[in-house]
């Protein structure tokens, strides 16, 4: 439509532009669409048909209804930090970007809940309520830019979910636009256990395939009274793994229990937030406990004892908030730090029973040797969530494919150890085939049956999550490192 200066022969783009109020409501030119051809998973790319920027639920519903009636594939996108390709428009989708819907609608401190729009950035919620001593617990490493809507889609985790749980444990209510454009509200007022099947639980982590969330009621928590952080260096990975087990066996539930191996340490020390970790250690642990101050010293004492018993080379307690923040910045930017030591990297996201840590790490070393690619390991050791980072150079012919295979082999190792192929990044495009490592055809069909109930035309984010044999994808040709962490 001329009012918005839209020049295209695509009538759908004109009609979609008319739905959305205001300027900058739609992108449709190829040069504008290029930024939307992938998310944080950059190996596969595809251009969307258009990107629309609705301002409110009604506009989202109208766009969805339009797509539904005209059989146009569509999907929702937040900040695009997803690491498994969930927001990549495989089928030339109309992307519904929720970045304009970024209001904090209300905060109710007495009843410990807040209502946000899906485009509201994760960390902004904590920043908005910290003056009253409250915070929002799920803390994915990309929390400074990822949106809570995206967190719901992926059931995002984070370093502190060992004690506090992942996104699904903090979602109390959702307003959802169903794939036919109908708007429903579940978990009214954030009241728990609404009668009926747990649709909140089902929608959270459905990777944008069952509906589009337009309003989210989350639980907020009071800041713990005290917090202490310990950094421990081990000469030997096995000792570090044993220390993890011993801390848990001592009945301590740390707020976070993170591990990095030697290659990961090399990378973080070469990147923007070096801490001065020794480069010749095999493993470091970053351990945080929080809670009632009177109880914390005892836990720290126990943790130090456990580390000493497991031949720790050096162990220290953060002496200031500044020091603690530095350690965490070093850890949380760990994925991006790989760019300092490798042109490209692929991050994987397997989960194993904690007790299998040493044997799975050995297997990952073998995989590294088999494929001739270095693999760094950064992981949430407390809950067994591994992030093997396969380092490669996409400019070398065949190396991208090799990296993908090595990543898949790491997931096979996790599945073989009784674990899962993804702990927090989601299946997306990346791990569709690996779903077969842990689920039978019937079990996958049980899940797609549920999708059919919500999304019978399968226009919403089709081709994600489940194995779809025979689909062709353009594999990225030249190198570019992943910027989201």
């Amino acid at each position: 439509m001329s009012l918005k200066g839209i020049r295209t022969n695509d009538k759908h783009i004109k009609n979609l532009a008319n739905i959305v109020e205001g300027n900058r409501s739609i992108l449709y030119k190829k040069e504008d669409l290029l930024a939307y051809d992938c998310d944080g998973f950059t190996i596969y790319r595809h251009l969307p048909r258009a990107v629309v920027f609705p301002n409110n639920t009604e506009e989202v519903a109208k766009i969805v209804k339009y797509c539904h009636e005209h059989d146009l594939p569509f999907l929702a996108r937040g900040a695009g930090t997803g690491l498994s390709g969930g927001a990549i428009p495989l089928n030339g989708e109309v992307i519904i970007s929720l970045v304009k819907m970024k209001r904090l609608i209300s905060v109710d401190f007495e009843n410990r809940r807040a209502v946000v729009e899906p485009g509201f950035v994760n960390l902004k919620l904590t920043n908005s309520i910290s003056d009253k001593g409250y915070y929002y617990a799920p803390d994915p490493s990309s929390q400074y830019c990822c949106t809570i809507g995206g967190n719901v889609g992926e059931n995002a985790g984070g370093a502190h979910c060992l004690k506090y749980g992942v996104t699904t444990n903090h979602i109390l209510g959702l307003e959802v636009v169903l794939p036919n454009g109908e708007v429903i509200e579940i978990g009214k007022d954030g009241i728990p256990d609404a009668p009926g099947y747990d649709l909140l639980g089902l929608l959270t982590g459905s990777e944008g395939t069952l509906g589009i969330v337009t309003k989210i009621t989350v639980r907020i928590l009071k800041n713990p009274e005290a917090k202490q952080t310990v950094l421990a260096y081990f000469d030997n990975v096995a000792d570090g793994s044993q220390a993890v087990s011993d801390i848990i066996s001592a009945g301590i539930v740390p707020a976070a229990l993170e591990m990095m191996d030697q290659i990961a340490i090399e990378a973080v020390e070469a990147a923007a937030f070096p801490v001065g970790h020794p480069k010749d250690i095999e493993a470091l642990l970053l351990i945080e406990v929080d809670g009632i101050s009177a109880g914390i010293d005892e836990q720290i004492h126990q943790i130090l004892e456990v580390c000493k018993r497991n031949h720790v080379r050096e162990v220290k307690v953060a002496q200031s908030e500044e020091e603690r923040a530095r350690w965490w910045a070093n850890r949380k930017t760990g994925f991006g730090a790989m760019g300092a030591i490798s042109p490209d990297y692929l991050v994987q996201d397997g989960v194993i029973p904690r007790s299998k840590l040493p044997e799975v790490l050995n297997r990952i070393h073998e995989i590294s040797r088999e494929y001739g690619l270095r693999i760094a390991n950064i992981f949430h050791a407390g809950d067994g969530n591994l992030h093997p980072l396969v380092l490669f150079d996409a400019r070398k012919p065949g190396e991208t494919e090799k990296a993908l295979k090595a990543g898949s082999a790491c997931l096979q190792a996790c599945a073989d150890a009784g674990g899962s192929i993804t702990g927090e990044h989601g299946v997306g495009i990346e791990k569709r085939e690996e779903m077969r490592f842990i689920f039978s055809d019937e079990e996958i069909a049980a899940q797609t049956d549920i999708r059919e109930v919500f999304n019978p035309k399968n226009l919403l984010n089709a081709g994600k999550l489940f194995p779809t044999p025979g689909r062709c994808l353009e594999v990225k040709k030249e190198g570019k490192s992943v910027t989201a962490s």
Partner: protein
Amino acid sequence: MLQGELYTELKDVFPESQMEVKENEGHPLGNGGKVAVYPKTENEISHILQYANKNGKTVSIVGGGTKRGFGGLIDSADILLSLANLKGIVEHTVGDMTLTVKAGTPFQELQQYLEEHNQKISLDPAWPDYATIGGIIAANESGPKRLAYGSARDAVIGLRVVYPNGKVIRTGGKVVKNVAGYDMNKLFVGSMGTLGVLTEITLKLRPLPKYESNVLLSFTEGDFAEMRSFAAAFLDSQMEPVSLELISPSLAEKLTGEKFYTLAISFEDNESSVHYQESFLKSIQPPKTKMTILAQEKARKFWQSFYTISPNGRVSNQTGETEAVLKIGVVNLDVLKVIRESHLLQDTHNLLIEAHGGLGHGLCQIVLRGGSENVISAIQHLRNFVKQLNGYAVIKHLPFILRQKIEVWGENPPYFFLFKGIKTKIDPNNILNPKRFVGGI
């Protein structure tokens, strides 16, 4: 079809020694079956469901029977599938703090076993000696300590489910963090056995607390403004109670001997942390209140008796009075209003009403005893009352005959068609626990 024919047919697919013809007993709580079967294996369950699904036989599922009065508009299904013999621990990986267990295992047996390893399942359901883990998960049963530990949906990490067509589906896994595929576990938690028969449940465990106490704070003058401001101030502090349960005077009398509105505030942590929090409570103790601290064994005793205050569906009611239980969900601090309203109904409706609710999670349980008409009228009154608060009221226990007269689950939500869609997809022949759930599902 005659009972005898059903029995004969079942015999072909299931060991006769584990079958029993039920007399048409007209159980006061309904939810029975013409033939009871007691499978010992998942495979046997699969055979029964295949038979039922093919032949259009309805199946009612029972564990310990404590929730027999919870929902259901059928006096007697064709088959009563008891999980009482599907018992035992499948796998306990101590270091991983995960436990896989068969669905028919009584909850208390599990806790006793886990205690030897300084671990526990962090749920606190009613009637733990009788309630099975499968029933607790299927009915989404929780207690006051969900304030700190969450509910069944937070504890379950994996399930094995026999679908109505007899196929076994695994959901989730054995690891504590997992986002592979849809979170199908959630679909079955609280589904009241209408989608599949749970056979194995994998749970994430917690360490046993090193020390615990339960602080009883009684408001001797029943001043609600005082209760509210105390609760708000306490919740705004950095203390970490595992329960903040408001108990109505009549229930308090039963549990403590004193008839005051009472808050049961529990702490579980190491000893110094617990004492520190007790001292904090003393420092903000409102005037005209009385504080009693129950430490360790005394705290455990208190909760043990607390978990037996509601009617137990496996025991027949000999009192001649009608017993009912309501589960009410409201916004956290509205629990105060619900508990007060429930208490006031005692006199207006000539009932004994014992009520409690969590000020940090918004769930209340109201036990009503008395004449049936008064019970029904009180339920309707409370339902209207919580509707104004945007809350809901579900009837967790009521005799079968009265369940025909009042909607157990309340009004259907606007998105009921999704429930129906899910049910139809998984159980197209509607054989599993028909009419037990929301909207006649």
